[in-house]
């Protein structure tokens, strides 16, 4: 059964892990309601917590397309849950590129997996797109409306179109760190239990 095409079983695996990853994202997202600053820390939390299911997912990938489809699904879910569609190109691009990187290591090379996951994590930045895009006009509105400039700066210091580059880099870095942690946990549990 070494066909190149994805089988029904692969699609089900993709579905399961996408659901798990989204639950992680959602749980972390909930924390964002506490204060806007926490929203910025998504780039640390989601890559690291998400690495546990994702590293398990990587052990199940043998064929091209699984990561790409996962990113498409994430984009669809983000869209349907009202979190905007402007990030979709970023999500899908990072998924496909991550898939290509992992494929160049035939889905076995650990180094490639780390980089691939780092790239995949860039999708998290799609969460910021609506805010970044609305931010400028929004800030103007707020100040026109009489809000203190101090508050506005507070709100947008963490997230604006300049820092988005920094956030992307952070996503990648913490993605790689997360991959190492996730892999250690997969070894500690799933390999020891003989599941993978």
């Amino acid at each position, binding site marked *: 059964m070494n066909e190149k095409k994805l089988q*029904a079983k692969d*699609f*089900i695996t993709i579905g399961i892990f996408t659901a798990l990853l989204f639950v992680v994202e959602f749980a972390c997202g909930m924390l964002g309601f506490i204060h806007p600053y926490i929203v910025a820390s998504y780039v640390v939390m989601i890559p690291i917590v998400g690495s546990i299911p994702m590293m398990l997912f990587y052990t199940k990938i043998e064929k091209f397309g699984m990561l790409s489809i996962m990113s498409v699904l994430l984009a669809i879910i983000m*869209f349907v849950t*009202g979190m905007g569609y402007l990030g979709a190109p970023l999500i899908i691009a990072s998924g496909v590129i991550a898939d290509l990187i992992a494929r160049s290591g035939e889905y076995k090379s650990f180094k490639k997996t780390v980089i691939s996951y780092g790239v995949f994590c860039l999708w998290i930045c799609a969460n910021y797109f609506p805010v970044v895009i*609305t931010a400028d006009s929004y800030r103007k509105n707020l100040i026109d409306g009489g809000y203190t400039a101090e508050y506005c700066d507070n709100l947008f210091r963490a997230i604006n179109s300049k820092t988005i580059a920094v956030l992307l880099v952070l996503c990648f870095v913490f993605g790689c760190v997360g991959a190492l942690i996730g892999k250690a946990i997969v070894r500690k549990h799933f390999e020891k239990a003989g599941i993978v």
Partner: protein
Amino acid sequence: MSVKLDPRTKLYMIFVVSAVVMMSATTPFLWAVRITMTMIPILLLIMEKHYAAAFRFLILYAAALIVTFRFLSESSKGFLAAFLVGYCSIIVQFMPAMITAWYVVRTTKIGEFVCAMQKMHIPDGITISLAVVMRFFPTIKEEYTSIRDAMKMRGIMLGGGNAAGIIEYRMIPLLFSCVNIGDELSAAAVTRGLGGKVKRTSVQELKMSVADYLLMLLFTAALGVFVVFKYIK
């Protein structure tokens, strides 16, 4: 009375609302359009008998609107005020998208959704995966509830003296369960013909009704208004 909307209309609604929340309303007219757009999903929720949710959204949205417009416009200083403004403006800005999404997620059956995707010529692989995602959310919830119970019984809700344990003890049993369920689910699905070469059919019948066209028209108009104001005027 209940209006059965086509999932494609609902997706279009989300599309428009998500676009509009990213453009700020600068004139009273735009505010009126925006508020009308928010009221439509609330009205639809009421028609579908989701009274509690509709009521909650309505109150929250109205409260946020009032706070932003009335009380915090002139001399809002200090941490608390800033905090409150932050919340309320975020709610006013993004709430319409949340309400619409909530309405769509609550009132669309997965079968309908998958069928709509098929009609839009999205490949089977993606629709299958997406159906699994939908089926797995409640499963994850069930499994997680049991795991949390087990953690309570062990007294390790906070990781049992091990900070990483807070995440590890939740995640590990959850992953083991999900992988097992996934294996059994795949076996059961392939023996019922999933993954065959024939094109899947669907018993769902999707038809655009007058209400669908009407809503699409309305939302397109609203989108038009915002685009004109933002880019042309």
